[in-house]
Structures are given as C-alpha cells and as structure tokens.
C-alpha cells in the first residue's frame, strides 16, 4: 500500500513540476501551429532552446530580466521568420523537414566548441549563472512550505516560486489563446486549416496569417524554454528532437485544437510515465527488466502510444473530431 501512496505522490509531484508547466506552454504554442493553423512544426524544441539561450545569455551579460525576456522573444520571432519565408508557401511536409533541421542547427551551433564562451558548448550554462534576477523577483518569504504532501523551498532553485510563475504562465497563455481563437483572426486561422484556397478566395493573405501563427506559437515556445531552464540548466542536448516529439505526443494526447488539451496532455504524459516506470520497477522481476530498462520500457510505450493515438483517436482526449487538422 505504501508503494501505491508513494507512487501517487511521485506522480502528483511530477504533474505540478516546472518542467511539466514548460511542456504545457510549449504544447500550447504548438497547438497554435498545428491544432489551429495546420502547420507541421517539428522544431518546437528549437524555439525553446533559442528562448532559453536568449534569456540566459542576456542575463549573464548583465541585462535586466525583462529585457532578457524580450530578447528571448525576439530570437523566436526572427527564427520563425527565417523558417517561414522559404517554407510556408510549400506543402506541409517541407515545413516539417525544414523546422526539424533548423532546430537541429540551433542545437549543433549551441553545443559547438567554438561557442564555449557564449553558450557553454555541450556542457551548457549552469542555472546559478542566470537564475539570480528571477529569484530576486520572488515576493514569497524565505523558508519552506508544505502543502498537502508537497514540500518545497519557497523561493530556492526548484521551489514554489518557479512553480507559481510557471503555472501562472500556463493559465495566462491558455486564456490568451482562448481569446485569440474566438477572434476574427482565429477564425481565419481555422479556415486556413480547413481549406486554404477557400480563405484565399475571400481575399485573405494566407501566407501572412500563417506567418503570424508561426511567430506567435514560436514565441510561446520561447517562453516555455525559459520556464524549462529556470530550475535546471541550459543544456542543448536536452532540448533536441526527442523533446519536440514528446511535445507532439503531449499535444495529441490531450487533444489538438482544444484550449485545455495541451495542458492536460503534458500532465498526463509525465504522470503516466512515472506510473509505468514505478509499476514496472515494482512488479516485473529484476531478471526480466532491470531498473535502467524500466526507463527505456516507459519510452517504448510513449512511442507505441503516439502511434495508437494518431491511428485510433487522432482528436485526443479533449479534441473535437470536426476540428481535426490531419
């Protein structure tokens, strides 16, 4: 019994962790691309990495935190423009290949030894070097707080403050998307997803709308990147292709083209993986599956789940079959 209580606690702890919040925000950004506009962006982790670099490097250079956030957003905007100009007029899968390649370029340049003085190369930038201004903003008193079974420092490296900020951003961005999608602008986006030519025949500049969607979703991705690195480090290899694929899994699981889908998807993605690992570790004998293999087993299930999801329930948990982008 203790095992199950412990497992439940682990699952809820990961569910409210800052990295889950970051995944949720990234998935919300991707939802604008894919769910509402039908753009196959396979480089969301690249936007996150750029945001993280932009933020961390600006702070290390001594700029104030709000300027640093603006720089992070600026990086994402430029990246979106660079990606969008050659590809948004082409068929969807070109965008997929170009975005995934561009995200890899960002990662490879970031981890290159030539950039050691700026990005810290493959070792990355340690959290202490850029976290200061963020923790200084905290209005929480010093010390530790326990709520239910969650005990964290109020402000520390990985405490309540970053959780509070992370989940507030999730709420804020969700609300923003809710408003935007109900606006005339959002209706055009969904129109592009359904029938590009029809929207073009109404005199709308489809290319410009797609570009705006790419920029907006990418900027949200950059914010996700900042949240992701605040309690840890900026490590280029942790924000590679796999991360993009996991964000996709979270989005499709929760339901693309729905407001709460990405958030629910991210929470379930992390919690269920912990569940699988925990159960496999507890009930499958060591001789069949050792502790390292339970980790890999959980990722195999993620891959299989992604396949089954797309085949049998492409609208995810919260999505609407009529709003499908496929």
């Amino acid at each position, binding site marked *: 019994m203790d095992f199950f209580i412990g497992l439940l606690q682990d699952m809820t702890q990961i569910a409210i962790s800052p990295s889950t919040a970051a995944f949720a925000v990234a998935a919300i950004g991707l939802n604008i691309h894919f769910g509402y506009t039908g753009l196959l962006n396979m480089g969301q982790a690249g936007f996150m990495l750029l945001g993280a670099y932009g933020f961390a490097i600006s702070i290390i250079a001594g700029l104030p935190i709000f300027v640093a956030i603006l720089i992070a957003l600026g990086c994402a905007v430029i990246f979106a423009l660079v990606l969008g100009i050659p590809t948004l007029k082409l068929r969807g899968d070109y965008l997929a290949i170009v975005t995934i390649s561009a995200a890899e370029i960002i990662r490879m340049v970031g981890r290159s030894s030539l950039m050691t003085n700026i990005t810290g190369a493959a070792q990355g930038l340690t959290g202490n070097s850029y976290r200061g201004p963020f923790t200084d903003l905290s209005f929480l008193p010093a010390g530790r707080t326990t709520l239910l079974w969650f005990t964290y420092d109020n402000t520390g490296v990985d405490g309540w403050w970053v959780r509070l900020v992370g989940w507030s951003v999730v709420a804020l961005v969700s609300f923003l998307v809710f408003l935007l999608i109900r606006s005339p602008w959002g209706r055009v986006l969904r129109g592009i997803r359904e029938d590009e030519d029809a929207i073009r025949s109404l005199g709308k500049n489809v290319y410009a709308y797609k570009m705006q969607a790419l920029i907006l979703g990418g900027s949200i991705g950059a914010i996700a990147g900042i949240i992701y690195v605040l309690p840890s480090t900026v490590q280029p290899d942790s924000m590679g292709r796999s991360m993009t694929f996991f964000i996709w899994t979270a989005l499709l699981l929760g339901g693309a083209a729905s407001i709460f889908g990405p958030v629910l998807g991210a929470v379930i993605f992390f919690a269920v993986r912990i569940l699988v690992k925990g159960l496999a570790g507890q009930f499958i004998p060591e001789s069949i599956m050792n502790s390292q293999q339970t980790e890999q087993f959980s990722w195999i299930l993620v891959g*299989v789940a992604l396949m089954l999801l797309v085949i049998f329930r492409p609208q995810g948990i919260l999505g609407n079959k009529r709003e499908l982008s496929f």
Partner: protein
Amino acid sequence: MTAHSEKLSRTPTLRQRAIVAVLALAGALTLLGATAMPALGAEAPCLADVSNACIQGTVKMSTGAPAVGVDITVETTNFSKVLTTDKAGKWVISVTTAGKYSVKLDPATLPSGQRLASTSANPASITVTLHANSGAVFKLESTSAPAGSSGTSSTAGSGITWDRFLQQAASGLRLGLLLALAAIGLSLIYGTTGLSNFAHAEQVTMGGLIAYGLANVLGWNLILATIATVVITAATGWTQDALIWKPLRKRGLGVNQLMIVTIGLSIALQYTFQYFVGAGTVRIQQDNPAVISIGAVTLTLQSYVAMGIAVIVIVLAGLFLLKTRVGRATRAVSDNPALAAASGIDVDRIIRLVWTISAGLAGLSGVMLGLVLNGINWQTGMQLLLLLFAAVTLGGLGTAFGALAGSLIIGMVVELTNLVLPGDFKYATALVILILLLLVRPQGIFGRKERVG
C-alpha cells in the same frame, strides 16, 4: 498469415511470399536472441535519481577500439576515487553530492602507442547536478600522429592542403555512398506512398545491430552475417508494410497522420534498441581494422570494400528500376499511383516490394556504417536521419536517382566542411544547404515543379 490468406488469389507469388514470411519470423527470433545476450553482460549501471548523479565516460583509442584498464581519478572536496575502464573502455561512478568535480586520466596507464590528444583537457573539470548524468571525454591519439593534430574531425585544420582535401573528399564519397543506400529507399517510399518515413533511420540502426548480434555475439562469418542481416531487415520491411502501413492505407489515414505514426514508431524502435543493447556503442568486428593508403587517401580496408559494395548495389538498384518490368511499374506508381492502378499495375504489391527493398538497403547501409564508423549504437541512424532527408529533398522528393545525387552532395559537404570549420558544424552545414536550396529551388535538383503544392 497474410501470405496464407492470399494464397488463392495470387498463386505465382505464393512461394516468394511464404519464404519472406518465414524469414520475417526467423528474423524476429534472431533479433530477440541476438540482442538479449549483451544486455545480460552489461556493467553495473548507474541510474541517476533525485539523490544521486552519474559521472561516466568511455575512453577510446584513436582507432576507435576501447582503451581497457585506464585509471581515472574522480575528485572533489573530501572525496576521491580511482576507477578503471572496463573491457568496453567505460567507466562510471555514482556520486551523491552535486558540485564541481575534477576527473583526471592517468596517462601512464594508457595502452601503448596512445597518448592524450590534448593535455590541457586533463584533468577535466565538470559540474555535476543531481538527477543527471555528466560525462568527461578524453580524446586519445596515436603517438605516431604529429603533436596537436588529433587526426579526427574534432578540430578544424590549420590551412587547407591538397592532401587533406583529397582525404576529406574520399571520406565524403564514402559517406555519400552509404547514405545513398538508405536514401534511395526513403525516396522510393516517399514516391510510392507520399510518406516521409521518420523511422527509416531506425532500419539503418537495426541493420548494424543485427550484424553486431550475428557477427560479434554469435560469431558468424562477416559476409554471411551481412547477407543474413539484409534478408532479415528486408523481412522487417515486408512485415511492417503488412502489419502497419497497408492496413493504415486502407483505413484512409492522411500522409501527415502517417508521418506522425512513423515518428512514434521511430521512438519505440530507438528505445527498443536501447533496451536490448544498452546505450553504448557496439562493434561489429572486434579486431582493429587494417588501414590502406592510396596516394594521399588513407582509409580502412572495410571502407574500400563498403564503397565497392555500395556502388554495386546502387547500380543493381538502378538497373532494376530502369530495365525490369517490376522496376518500371515501381517508377510508374511513383509517378502517379492512380494512373498506374488504372493501367493494371497492382499498386499494393509494388508498395510492398518497395518497403521490402528499402528496408533491406537501409539494413545494408547500417552494416556498412557500423563497419566503417567502427561501431554502431542505438542512435546512429537517428543522427543520419536529417542527412537522409536533406539528401532526398536536395535530389527531389520521390526521385530515386535524385536521392543518389543528393546523397553524394550531402556526403561531400559534410566531410569537406571539416576543412574550414570544426567538426561540430559538419552536419549543420548540410542542413543549412537544404534550407537555402528550398529558398531557390524547392522541388530539388531533379524534381519537377508541379510536385510542390
């Protein structure tokens, strides 16, 4: 079972189908048997969790073989431990405090004929955070190499000499040919089904790992193992189409949906490889490869053989596409599936064949890469996937000969980049070229304009 139920309708191909089905089963069993074994012999793993962290690394000789018995000292305030590399050249330690650690390699314990490529990197200083893995890398070089040049791609050379150019161009040709083996299949699949197959790179990895299982673990003759690998991987292609892709086509899934299914498959396969073989690099051949110099070009014997085999197979594939009835039918389906079906071509059969051949070619490419790169690991294919896509897009999506040309260009670009930029950038330049090309000629070099929407 599919073969059985279709027995009545297509008697001429019955025997082939039965053979392939049996091979598929045999392949799956061999794969399980071959890959389960090394997992048992894996060293005590270090698993990072909230209370500890792993520091690890692999020391390899300049030839790529593991350096065994090298002493590594891991130190921090009030903590010091000496480790020795195991038979795979690996060392790992679990620590429970975060902070700065110094990792020092004892040069006196290095195998004879080897020295550190850069003495300034020893001791290495690393920052360890709990719940994470950290590593320290020590590059070795042969004592016969001139001081300062590590001989590998990690440093940008000072000055471009004609000899270096030739050497890199030869490596580029080698990479290009091996990429082409896999890219032709990727392109054929795209041409016949419209699918960008993200799991194609996993077929490459699978080829290398099966060859490792057969040649290294089971001790088969290398040539026999290679042939068996190609047959097994081709069978996996056949099974994949029978079990996944054909039913999904019948279900009417869109190409974008299918593309995400391949991403799921690719994740599942990657971690399956890791599950059985572990995260380390395994070698298909244990002994160190012989090196042969032709003029200024020095490559391993395997490289020459691999290039030769690749050329032969590519020529055969080209002849098949141009000269045989089935080959012509394949190109017809690639051009326009509806028209091909209307003119009496069995499109599903052609697609099944394309999957089989593509997976087989990718498997062969994996074996060759494993031999040429001195080892293969669970992500060898994944690292090549984008180069494959770049090659295929460069040549024109869906054109087999474009894929060949694209692969050679990408291979050259990747290796020649080393002349002017550090090795970190070699894959990046290929991708930059891809993006630039899409700006000016989105249909690729050999593609036709109407293919692009």
